């Protein structure tokens, strides 16, 4: 399992080296290209700011009211049997619906437990292997006016569920 940690630490530096070396070998002005791309990233981050403010505010209200704790308490008997922290349940469902709303919940968990806690690590892994199924499906199918989606939803939910299970398993093995 230590191998995965090694991969984690090597991944970004490796991506840096490969991309920059490949760019240089093709005669690209890598610095100028980087700056050009960075401008796009900046716009992208600033664009999500209003959304993030709106959603984090809503999540802040929801959490400080105690509503999420009540929900977690109700579901905890089931989730505990699956070794799944009940604190993650609201996020697990929200993740399927809205990427920005689940980000709000994610940051809330980071603030409450810290990113290096077991919950913080599990939620990081889980967020990176799941998708906003309902949102993506409606956009993609609506764009071509398809109404009968057959087994798409079932398949996507199974894939996401498998991802959640794998996250729990790997986090238990490494940090559990």
């Amino acid at each position, binding site marked *: 399992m230590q191998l*995965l940690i090694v*991969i*984690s630490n090597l*991944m970004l530096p490796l991506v840096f080296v*490969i991309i920059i070396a*490949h760019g240089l070998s*093709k005669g*690209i002005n890598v610095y100028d*290209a980087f700056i*050009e*791309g*960075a401008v796009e*990233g*900046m716009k*992208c*981050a*600033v664009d999500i*700011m209003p959304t993030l403010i709106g959603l*984090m505010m*809503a999540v*802040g*209200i929801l959490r*400080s*009211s*105690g*509503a999420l704790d*009540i929900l977690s308490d109700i579901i905890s008997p089931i989730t505990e049997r699956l070794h799944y922290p009940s604190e993650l349940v609201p996020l697990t469902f929200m993740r399927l*619906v*809205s990427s920005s709303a689940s*980000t709000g919940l*994610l*940051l809330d968990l980071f*603030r409450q437990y*810290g*990113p290096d806690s077991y919950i*913080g*690590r599990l939620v*990081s*892994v889980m967020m990176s*292997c*799941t*998708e906003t*199924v309902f949102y*993506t499906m409606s956009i*993609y*199918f609506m764009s*071509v*006016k*398809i109404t*009968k989606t*057959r087994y*798409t939803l079932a*398949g*996507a939910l199974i*894939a996401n569920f*498998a991802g959640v*299970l*794998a*996250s729990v398993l*790997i986090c238990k093995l490494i940090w559990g």
Partner: protein
Amino acid sequence: MLNYLWAGMIFIGILTAAFTGNMELVTNGALDSAKEAVNTVIVMVGVLSMWTGLMKIGEKSRLIEALSERLMPFLGFLFPDVPKKHKAMKHIAANVIANMLGLGWAATPAGLMAMKELQTLNPHKEKASRAMCMFMVFNMSSLQLVSVNIIAYRSQYGSANPSEVIGPGLFATLVSTAAGIAVIKLIEMRDRKCSF
């Protein structure tokens, strides 16, 4: 959808607070969260710009294009109904690569183009074709290799090693994608006879 979700979260929160007597906490919660959102975006600007800057180099040196070429044999296995030279394949490849690299804004346009092209091959226009089901499930099984956003958020909240989740995340992503492909292939095998 987000419209009702957002309003619902606020109403449920305030309603619950009325019963639990947490109204004061709710006021603070709303204000603190709004401030925190801005701080988070400031960290995001740095990490996200770094990533898009790097990807721009990959785009200009045609590295990203070369990667989608490499993907073709695998896509042939996933989409036996789609001719290899068909435009749909090109868009699917672009979508998959963009998703793998975490370029959401590049992935969506390519994905929508892929759906449009797949629709031209679809005999029943209101019903999802086999290739569409596979594309959607594959796409939604999460393909992203490195979750740059998560790393940015982790560092914002003071993680000692923000990138330590990349490896485990990669493992979990592989599992979810493999599960998605397996499920669809199994369903396809089961109703091969009655499908088109």
